[in-house]
């Protein structure tokens, strides 16, 4: 009779015991490296958001009723005046309040400081950003969806179309400041416009016969020029996303529609676009959120450091809103943080603007998520 080998049959030992090796250590090391990389990103994001929230939220919200500081959202930016009397007491006031306080203090005034743009609110920049984004959305979606439809439904796939695609992709790699300069040259200085008095610097003025000219003299720095420039920044995103969404609509829908006698356009309009639209909109909204945050493209084309009027104030009419320059949030933040001397009084407007801006962008992103959920549920196949 043979006795079984000792090492396999000894009672009390585990035949399935773990083999000692460095493999496990290596595995867990890799896992922890990858995990910590993820966490680093998470921590950085969280700290940016918390920082802005902690410093910015008190500017807009308060713990005492009415809990919201409306003046920051409803007033235009103005210069903050800080007066100090000889006892060291400080008075923060608006430009109009300065004289009153000065009169009160009389000889007691020791020191006066002015901090540009740091008083009042940021209504001007908010309105400007909304207008710019509005023009940008119309232009980018219009041009982008139209060309996506052409590329995916009509164009014969070939070398030329491949080149067009490549060009569109490359467009997304162009630095945004280049877009800004392009906008300056294209929309601000040379875009066509109908006018009765062409400027001397107009590149070309074509008379229309009834006293009006089509003059290639540009739209000046204006909402229109800025919106168009921003649109070109996000066009690659819109076109690429739209094309993907159009391709995702099953070919069967198109064939069925055509087989029922619909024309190509009827098919696209009724059977392709409606089902691609949820995707197009959601990815475009994300692109738009990016456009809202761009500073460089609007720097030369639309934005002003300061303006004491809202676009519709004054007798410019509806079109006038779009033909004048505005303040915009990203540019306002840039001005506040880089163009004026920094001190304890400038912080309020800085963090407040960043906070409001962040909330705006996040609500755009949130809207896109909600929209996608809703439309997905409606158009499922």
């Amino acid at each position, binding site marked *: 009779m043979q006795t079984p080998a000792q090492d396999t049959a000894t009672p009390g030992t585990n035949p399935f015991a773990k083999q000692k090796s460095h493999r496990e250590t290596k595995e867990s090391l890799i896992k922890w490296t990858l995990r910590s990389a993820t966490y680093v990103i998470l921590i950085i994001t969280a700290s940016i958001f918390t920082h802005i929230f902690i410093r910015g939220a008190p500017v807009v919200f308060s713990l005492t009723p009415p809990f919201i500081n409306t003046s920051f959202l409803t007033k235009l930016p103005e210069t903050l005046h800080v007066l100090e009397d000889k006892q060291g007491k400080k008075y923060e006031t608006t430009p109009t309040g300065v004289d009153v306080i000065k009169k009160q203090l009389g000889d007691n005034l020791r020191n006066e400081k002015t901090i540009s743009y740091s008083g009042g609110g940021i209504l001007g920049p908010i309105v400007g950003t909304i207008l710019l984004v509005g023009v940008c959305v119309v232009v980018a979606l219009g041009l982008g969806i139209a060309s996506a439809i052409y590329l995916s439904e009509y164009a014969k796939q070939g070398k030329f179309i491949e080149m067009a695609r490549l060009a569109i992709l490359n467009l997304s790699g162009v630095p945004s400041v280049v877009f800004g300069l392009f906008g300056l040259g294209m929309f601000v200085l040379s875009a066509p416009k109908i006018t009765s008095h062409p400027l001397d610097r107009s590149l070309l003025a074509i008379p229309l016969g009834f006293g009006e000219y089509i003059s290639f003299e540009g739209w000046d720095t204006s909402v229109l020029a800025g919106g168009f420039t921003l649109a070109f920044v996000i066009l690659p995103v819109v076109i690429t996303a739209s094309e993907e969404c159009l391709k995702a609509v099953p070919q069967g829908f198109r064939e069925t529609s055509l087989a*029922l*006698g619909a*024309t190509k356009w009827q098919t696209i309009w009724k059977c392709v676009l409606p089902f691609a639209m949820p995707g197009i909109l959601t990815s475009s909204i994300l692109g738009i959120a990016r456009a809202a945050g761009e500073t460089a493209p609007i720097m030369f084309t639309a934005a002003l450091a300061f303006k004491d009027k809202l676009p519709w104030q004054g007798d410019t009419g509806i079109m006038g809103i779009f033909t004048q320059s505005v303040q915009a949030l990203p540019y306002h933040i840039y001005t506040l943080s880089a163009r004026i001397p920094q001190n304890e009084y400038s912080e309020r407007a800085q963090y407040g603007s960043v906070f409001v801006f962040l909330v705006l962008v996040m609500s755009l992103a949130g809207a896109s998520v909600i929209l996608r959920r809703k439309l997905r549920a409606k158009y499922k196949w």
Partner: protein
Amino acid sequence: MVTTYPIMMSTVAPKKAESGVATPPAAAPEVSEMASETSSPVSNAIITVKDMDFCYGAKQAMFNVNLNIATKKVTAFIGPSGCGKSTLLRCFNRINDRIPGAHISKGEVRIKGKNINEEDVDLAQLRRQVGMVFQRSNPFPKSIYENVAYGLRVHGESRKSVLDTAVERCLTHAALWSELKDRLNANAMGLSGGQQQRLCIARAIATEPDILLMDEPCSALDPIATSKIEELIFQLSNDYTVVIVTHSMQQARRVADDTAFFYLGKLIEFAPTMEIFSNPRQKQTEAYVRGQFS
């Protein structure tokens, strides 16, 4: 039976036919020449295919097909995958035009006596009269009502009364009205597979076509749904000319009046269904219907 038999095709004198069978695909033209000699149009043919070659770009997919399809009968196309039966079906409403490079390189397809590939044929009008049901049931993700009304809407019909009548007529015809009349506004994607396919049939007959093309309409359905569709096809043949492509020989046997067998892009045999299955003249047909290859 044979006297009313609408057409014929490459069935020739048995001797010749055998030689045709023996020839590999490369020798196709021989078979087709014989075919064109013998095909004789019948008076009640609604679709006539004459000496047709079809190419996808440089690749030839169909070789010298001659075929007459009779009015208000069910004609089945059978054959192994890649034999060209779907390609031919898709020629009848020119939906092949969508595929770049696909074209009829020789011969012609006539429907109601008109060559449908001529310049003056309006695709919308052609497709309105030649409806099609696809392999995958693909209702639009819209309401049941809108699915059926789609064909009429694209042809410019917007009067509610007309659409209502049409929707009821088509759903009744497709044996769906009693099931669905209370939820016409529900999304069609919520229907079962068989209901979806019947809805697709209802949608296809809404434009009142003369011909209904069906490209393997039951291949994605379970047996019960399949038998309902087959029953429907049988009834539809009272009013429509039905051409159905099918993978299932049993289905062809059950629903079709005439059956055409295709192999490697050639029409091998076209005869009344009974004849194809019980007494095929070609060896290939016999081998196929006996299940010796597929």
